[in-house]
């Protein structure tokens, strides 16, 4: 396991958002997290990425508990994250986005990543002037600079068409395989999750409802009742 998360508990003014949630991420595999709105998916990513403290959570990355480490430290040591809401810098060119991260993380192979993302023709455009889909690519691209060991992808397909979202999901799976990277993949598009994920954890009301392979999750009655529906 490259990342083992245990006992993540988050409470907002008495309301429990997450209760003892945990999962394991392995290199080269995509681990999906699904669940209805308010299940705590993004809060979970916030805790793993360092944006939020997770109570007595233990986040063991390459043998070290990094629960007390800053987001900057985690990123520099290989835990990257992309955001549900596109978080690019509108006045900077696409090139500047990649240059900033590449310099910080001393990654000299960023051109290859830019080509893979299909962003080459847009390099000299300001990010605020490119399409939303391209901004999503830049957002994910920044998270991939430096070859992180773990990518926390928080709804990377948000705002994209279904086919674009699926294409992006396949691309992320391909990257996980090629770069031996562990991916935590949060997505509302259940079809995309079942297609690209090797393992799936289902959250409901802040608790783990079920964890297993896509086939196991799909056939679980509890999951069908709570989230997928009997037809699902």
């Amino acid at each position: 396991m490259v990342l083992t998360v245990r006992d993540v508990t988050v409470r907002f003014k008495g309301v429990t958002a997450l209760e003892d949630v945990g999962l394991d991420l392995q290199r080269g595999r995509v681990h999906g997290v699904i669940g209805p709105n308010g299940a705590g998916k993004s809060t979970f990513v916030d805790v793993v990425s360092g944006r939020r403290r997770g109570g007595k959570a233990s986040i063991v990355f390459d043998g070290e508990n990094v629960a007390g480490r800053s987001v900057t430290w985690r990123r520099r040591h290989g835990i990257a994250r992309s955001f549900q809401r596109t978080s690019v810098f509108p006045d900077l060119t696409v090139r500047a986005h990649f240059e900033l991260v590449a310099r910080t993380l001393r990654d000299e192979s960023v051109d290859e990543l830019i080509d893979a993302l299909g962003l080459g023709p847009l390099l000299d455009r300001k990010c605020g002037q490119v399409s939303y889909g391209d901004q999503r690519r830049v957002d994910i691209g920044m998270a991939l600079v430096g070859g992180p060991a773990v990518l926390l992808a928080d709804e990377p397909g948000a705002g994209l068409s279904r086919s674009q979202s699926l294409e992006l999901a396949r691309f992320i799976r391909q990257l996980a395989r090629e770069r031996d990277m562990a991916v935590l993949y949060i997505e509302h598009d259940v079809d995309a999750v079942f297609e690209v994920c090797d393992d799936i954890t289902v959250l409901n009301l802040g608790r783990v409802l079920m964890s297993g392979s896509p086939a196991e999750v799909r056939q679980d009655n509890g999951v069908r009742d709570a989230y997928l529906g009997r037809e699902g």
Partner: protein
Amino acid sequence: MTLTSEDSMERRIKADVGSGNRRPGGPRLRPMWVVKVGLVAIGFLVPLVVTGPYQRHLVVNAAILGIFGLGVAFLIRRLGMVSLGHALYFGGAAYAFGAFSTHGGLDIVPALLLALGGVVAVALAVGSLLVRSRGIAFTMLTLAFGQFVFTLAGLTQTRSVTGGDDGLPVRMNGTLLGLTVRDFSNPTTMWTICWAVVTVVLLALGLIGRSRFGKLLEAIRENEERVRFNGSNTYLPVLVAYVVSALVAGIAGVLFALYNSFLSLDVLAWTTSGNALIVSFIGGCWTATGPLWGALIYTVGNAMLVSGGRNEWQLYVGVAVIVVMVFAKAGVVGSLQAQWVRRRERRQPPVDLVRTS
């Protein structure tokens, strides 16, 4: 695997358009550089046009205030942080220079270097506390620090150094580039010095803006959290930017002391910080030269209205700020620039097919 969108045709068009729209730098930038060098050269000739001693005095004051404004606007432009306490560095540098010269008996050069070194040291110390905050909290803390020093400078215990309410006549020793105190009080000579400083400051701030550091500051301004998630520390770059901004304000303060040879506590007051802020907004703090033009408008406007017997100067300043904020939010220069860009775009055929959804 390469990621492609559904609209690969559009992407190809984008590629073509993109390559056509790129600014390779060389051929398109050169004329701008010629214009800029020309403007710098013309700037040195201002005393040939502005012939009256009082008018020259006004443009020197405008240049000093403009440099101060450049320092304040740097922080706004690069980080969106508004300081109401930069008089601490403007007045602080002026008083430090005055004290080193008058009480310490130092020559102009060492006094000047020590004053600016002191500004950097104080900015590092104060900034290390201030730059953790953002928005209104930052502005109020800068105001608090500025007022703290202003009050400190007026205390009986510090009177021997600052002169208190009586002010501090600055007794300068030695020369700077062969210039003596008599030269510094000459508006024509001082204009040349100020213009040279303006040029250097503009060049330095421009280089910083274009550097990787400048882009990092811009990224922090737009989304600091994202920058941290990119693995970059944001505290140190903001602190360095704060120190740069303070140093520019300090340079303006030393020029003020050199020119006036007399300092009063006003140079440390929050209204002095406010003046720098006002000229930045009037001229346009999002443009490179906006604060300079803002300072010229402010200084000349002040002189015209006061000499016309209308002492409600602050009333007119208030009206001017309201007019600019309502009708030209980017400031006078910023709005003119935006208009020029819009006009140029209208003349060009619409070739940009990139979606902006």
